[in-house]
């Protein structure tokens, strides 16, 4: 068994030289992780909406078929919205990647175990739902492969990345939802977005 991956190193590797990648961060640790990698106008970190990150990514991916969309979220957040795996698979977005940073814990509430600590296989569920590409990642080589897949397309992608359940300092993004929304839209759609 190799040493567990560290979530912030994984996220940093996935977001390095990200170009115009659109990034959604699920609430809690993934939102801190994407901010740690560098706050960015094309990040949309969630402060709530638990269970909604993947679906938000789908709406964005359908609206922007020429851009790549990456949802980085946690196992607890994904478990709250498992139906989204079926909904997304049916839509077959070619430009959407869902990456679950799976530490098998609810990190923000005291590191209680989630279902993935007891064998629930999120990647297997995504495969059964009909995702074109699913993978489990627990090595550096796996992270490199995942990165290539995120940036190269080829159908809806779901990855479950097993990471260490480490406690890390919070790196907070702005928390005004209007600001996060408006800066994202301005960066993606241009200044005219404010007049839509």
């Amino acid at each position, binding site marked *: 068994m190799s040493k567990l991956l560290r979530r912030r190193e994984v996220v940093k590797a996935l977001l390095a030289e990200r170009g115009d990648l659109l990034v959604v961060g699920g609430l809690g640790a993934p939102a801190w992780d994407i901010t740690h990698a560098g706050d960015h106008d094309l990040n949309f970190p969630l402060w709530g909406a638990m269970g909604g990150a993947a679906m938000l990514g789908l*709406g964005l991916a359908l609206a922007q078929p020429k851009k790549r969309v990456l949802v980085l979220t946690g196992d607890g957040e994904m478990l709250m919205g498992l*139906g989204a795996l079926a909904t997304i698979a049916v839509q077959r977005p070619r430009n959407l990647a869902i990456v679950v940073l799976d530490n098998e814990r609810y990190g923000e509430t005291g590191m209680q175990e989630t279902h993935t600590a007891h064998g629930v296989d999120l990647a297997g569920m995504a495969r059964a739902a009909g995702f074109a590409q699913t993978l489990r990642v627990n090595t550096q080589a796996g992270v490199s492969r995942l990165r290539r897949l995120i940036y190269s397309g080829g159908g809806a992608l779901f990855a479950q990345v097993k990471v260490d359940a480490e406690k890390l300092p919070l790196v907070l993004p702005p928390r005004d939802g*209007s600001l996060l*929304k408006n800066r994202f839209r301005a960066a993606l759609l241009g200044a005219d977005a404010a007049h839509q």
Partner: protein
Amino acid sequence: MEKTAESAWPDELHALLSAAGVRQVAMVPDAGHARLIRLCEKDKSMRVVRLTTEEEGVALLAGAWLGGEKGVLLMQSSGVGNCINMLGLPLACQFPLLMLVTMRGDHGEFNPAQVPMGNATRAVLEALGVMVKRADSAADLMEMASGALRLAFNTFRPVALLIGQRLLGAKDFRKLARSAPL
């Protein structure tokens, strides 16, 4: 279902959504929305996204707006209960969200199980701060729908239009039971 004067409103609703540039139609089906859903499915400029639960649609349409597209969320009143926490997203971020809600547990209801959520639909939405409009006749519906749509997209907030069971007609379970094959 044959189109009659009483059932022309889904066509008008579809025309309203189309003219407003709605691209993503998120829905959990309801009998009251059946014709509108078929019209949206036939419309090449619209993408119908079938959901497993209505709250998925709230998050989906936030993403759509982030990406520059307008959407609409179609559901039955029972689905409002499934959306409550997720509605914090459009409320906290000022995302526009138009919800067209066909009522159950309303005028002439047969099924007791539909009544608790149906009866609480308006109060629950208003408790959150979602603006609620209502139409109980076909004559009112289009004006209310047009107003709700503009309110949602011009002022960046979730707005629910409740379409009353008096307009839709209550489902007659006894008739359905009699017509069921033995």
